């Protein structure tokens, strides 16, 4: 079966985020960028399904400026077979991304689409669910285990207070949570090989999708900074402060 994995280029999770002085957005100039951690898990899961002989082809898709090709190459170094780059300089909202991916699904006809549950920049947690709604397909979000059984996929989901397992009829949409797997690192020979794997460049217009604005970002601020408090010299002093000053115990 064919799997599509959609990935996003985001700020590296170890980088400290700074807000621009004019409060228009976060400052991303000269910061280290990387594959979104949840997308890395999505790529890894697809590779494992291929290694298990369940998947036959992995197509990785990313939407954004030229630079996202770096992340597509990374995904191919890890094991994806080919890539589709949908080029745009704007930062499309989740619904626009979902509309583009729905068109990619029409063309590619995958049995499974795996996405990260959210990106660590906009923290929306929307695209997978929106894609499933637009294509009228079942979804297994926040997956910690994925098992393909015939024409179904069993997805164990991380829910408040535990785990819940659903059976979905393929084609289905799965979004990844942290516990699904531990992504591998790309090996140097594979990084070299990935440079020769096919990467197709498309535009939103090629898919007949026009971006529509639903949400306007008015301002971005640094959250109220915490002040360092006081240092105490004993457990007794700590308990006293928590009981009588903070009143939290």
């Amino acid at each position, binding site marked *: 079966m064919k799997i599509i994995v959609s990935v996003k280029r985001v*700020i590296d*999770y*170890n980088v*400290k*985020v700074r*807000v621009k002085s004019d409060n228009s957005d976060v400052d991303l100039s000269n910061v280290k960028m990387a594959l979104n*951690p949840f997308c890395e898990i999505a790529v890894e899961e697809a590779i494992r399904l291929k290694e298990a002989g369940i998947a036959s082809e992995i197509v990785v898709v990313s939407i954004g400026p030229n630079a996202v090709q770096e992340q597509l190459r990374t995904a191919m170094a890890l094991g994806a077979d080919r890539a589709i780059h949908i080029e745009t300089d704007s930062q499309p909202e*989740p619904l626009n991304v979902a509309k583009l991916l729905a068109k990619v699904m029409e063309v590619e006809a995958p049995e499974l689409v795996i996405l990260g549950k959210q990106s660590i920049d*906009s*923290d*929306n*947690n*929307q695209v*997978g*669910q*929106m894609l499933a*709604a*637009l294509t009228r397909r*079942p*979804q297994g979000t*926040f997956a910690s285990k994925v098992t393909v059984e015939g024409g179904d996929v069993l997805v164990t*989901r*991380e*829910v*408040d*207070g*535990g*785990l*819940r*397992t*659903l059976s*979905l*009829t393929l084609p289905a949409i799965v979004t990844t949570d*942290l*516990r699904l797997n531990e992504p591998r690192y790309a090996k140097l020979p594979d990084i070299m090989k990935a440079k020769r794997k096919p990467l197709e460049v498309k535009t939103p217009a090629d898919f007949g999708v026009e971006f529509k*604005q*639903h*949400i306007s970002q*008015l*301002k*971005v*601020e*640094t*959250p109220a900074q*915490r002040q*360092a*408090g*006081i*240092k*105490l*010299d*004993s*457990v007794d002093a*700590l*308990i006293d*402060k*928590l009981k009588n000053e*903070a009143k*939290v*115990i």
Partner: protein
Amino acid sequence: MSILLIAEHDNSTLNPATLSAVTAASQLGGDISILVAGSGCQSVADEAAQVMGISKVLLADNACYEKGLAENLSVLIVELAADYNHIIAAASSTIKDTMPRVAALLDVGQLSEIVAVESADTFKRPIYAGNAIATVQSLDTVKVITVRASAFEKAKAEGGNANTEVVDVVFDIGGSRFVSEELVKSGRPELTAASTVISGGRGLGSAENFSLLEKVADKLGAAVGASRAAVDAGFVSNDLQVGQTGKIVAPELYIAVGISGAIQHLAGMKESKVIVAINKDGEAPIFQVADYGLVGDLFEVLPELETKL
């Protein structure tokens, strides 16, 4: 102006996160209808009718809504949406699963996990794991919103007197089937809902030593968390991880033990009301965000805390 609020529940009781969403909804201005969709959930509807600020309870009681499958629930909400300007709910796992489907079916954007209501169309929400706060305005006629429950006080659970209307539409979409569930039967509260959290880091040194932390947690009725370093070292499983790529918590009291305070970890806990840091390294960055710091050996401090609490 009218608001449709989706109740979070387990078919027997109303989840308190719903009360926080009621507070957020009441700041929008307008009548609030609350949808209780489930199976055998009359008791939840009765509870919802008592909540202060609710004008109407919509009860959709059918087996197809029992497990809150997003495919069915989203179509039900869309069916009801025509009468409302806002569709809002607490960002529980069911709602995070369902609401973007609602937005997509309505062809509108979604505002995820708002932490403040500025006006009926403008909200604040954390981005970059809370390292920045965005003020965002919805340009759609229907606003689909999820609420970070920890950012809003809970509405009063009693004192209201809303009528209940039965919604008799059944959407059994198919394609998705509930198989099983495994709910954690820990005596400790759930990490993201706990009012006190005590987390351990690499400083704990081993999986066995986490028992020192658990004893203190049980004294405090606290949930146990961990830093990524502790998870990577294999001390605990990663469902306990607090941080940018783990769980985001905002309890009344957060106690960080043997945690240095990497950005990754701070992003997951810095909205906590009171932060306590216990670390032997007085220069550890965790002390810069802690209200109370105790520089000391956690292997002495934890047993002492357990005895004295």
